[in-house]
């Protein structure tokens, strides 16, 4: 069975987001990560992720967020060396994942989430994210999804 296609970003939003330079977007994203998630990540996991490079790509928005972990903080990076993990999905699917409305394996089976790179690290990231409770952020994201669901 195939999932219903996820809504794409409206064209106008796509155009605006497309113009955002990559590095500042990655910087904004890592600031958000440090603010909301860093303290909830177990220290041994942050240690295991140290110096690994991650790319999160939202294809519909034309955005690539690139970052690494240094001294247990998420920091933006510009390096184009091969990342440890490269995620690709639509903006909508990333939001449903963050809101825990979607299951990553389901998106993966349906070719809606692609993860390339080191599988062990991918599992570590995925499973650690599953242990993290951020009820207020999730409630907000869920509200957003309801308001925009097709």
């Amino acid at each position, binding site marked *: *069975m195939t999932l219903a296609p996820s809504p794409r970003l409206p064209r106008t939003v796509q155009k605006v987001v497309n113009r955002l330079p990559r590095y500042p977007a990655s910087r904004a994203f890592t600031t958000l990560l440090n603010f909301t998630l860093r303290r909830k990540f177990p220290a041994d996991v942050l240690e295991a992720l140290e110096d690994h490079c991650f790319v999160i790509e939202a294809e519909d928005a034309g955005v690539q967020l690139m970052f690494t972990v240094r001294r247990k903080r998420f920091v933006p990076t510009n390096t184009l060396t091969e990342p440890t993990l490269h995620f690709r999905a639509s903006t909508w699917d990333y939001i449903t994942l963050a809101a825990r409305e979607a*299951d990553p394996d*389901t998106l993966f*089976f*349906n070719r809606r989430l692609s993860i390339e790179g080191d599988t062990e690290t991918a599992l*570590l990231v995925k499973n650690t994210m*599953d242990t993290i409770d951020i009820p207020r952020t999730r409630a907000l994201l869920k509200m957003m999804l309801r308001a925009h669901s097709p």
Partner: protein
Amino acid sequence: MAALSPQATPSSARMRLVCPAGTLPALKVAVDEGADDVYLGFKDQTNARNFAGLNFNDATIREGIAYAHRKGAQVLIALNTYPQPHNWRNWRAAVDRAAEVGADAIIVADAGVLRYACKTHPNLRLHLSVQGSATSHEAINFYYEHFGIHRAVLPRVLAVEQAEKVIARTPVEIEVFGFGSLSIMVEGRCALSSYATGESPNTHGGCSPAKAIRWQTSSAGMESRLGGVLIDRFADNEHPGYPTLCRGRFRVNGDVYYPFEEPTSLNTLELLQPLQAMGVKAIKIEGRQRSPAYVEAVTRVWRAALNHCAAEPQHYHVKPEWQNALAQISEGHQCTLGAYHRPWR
């Protein structure tokens, strides 16, 4: 709440819903959505889902058990792998830990671990794991007589009539798989993963260890490899499954196909009424490796189905919205009844 029909199933004959939890949030949603039992494992090779970042430490287990007990659910700890002589102590310590944190039962496969548990912790309830591979009443009764097991999980290789015969001939509660990814081989004895990686679920706690898996996209499609062995290659319109050898597509005598089995998911919603009538005590949902979103969706559907089946067994039917919800989160293109309805034995 719906009024119970005159034919409603007595509570002693109702089937318990046993749900998976790889993380504390998954345990909580399972309990919130109505699981009767939640099963989980420690962060090591003593259980068959030993994956990075998954499973429980003592603090999260204690919190999980307290949460479940507050809401009337039970927690079962899976210690369902096989120790080797050099690491036997780890399994012994895991049994002690499970007893100490207050697990309601442990799910065990190895006879030595069962013996240790029943001698050292006589009050700790024992369930025989599916990994124990006991498919006959003689085997199950052996474990009952020697270790006093309370429940046995039937391997996913029996047809419905065979399960019924087992149930009629044992005092042990019988749990069967209801939903989830299929592991097609005789559980506890499959060494396919060892063949490609040197590690199997039976001894190391994971089929297809993540460090040996590689996903790669090339012009030919998306490829999955295990220990260098090409497991499958997916065209753009094809759906990948877990990269285990049993789900691999190989060239055999010139033809490329799935020689073992296509990646499918088991779904026995259709069989709930006969399973209940024959005396099955519990229905197990697979998927400790899946996210809380999966656990929430599956538990919700199965709770509704089991309630419906218990309240009105004569009128039980599978609602399309249940099938739809389950199909969305399944591995593979289709849900099957697995061996329950296989013509060959």
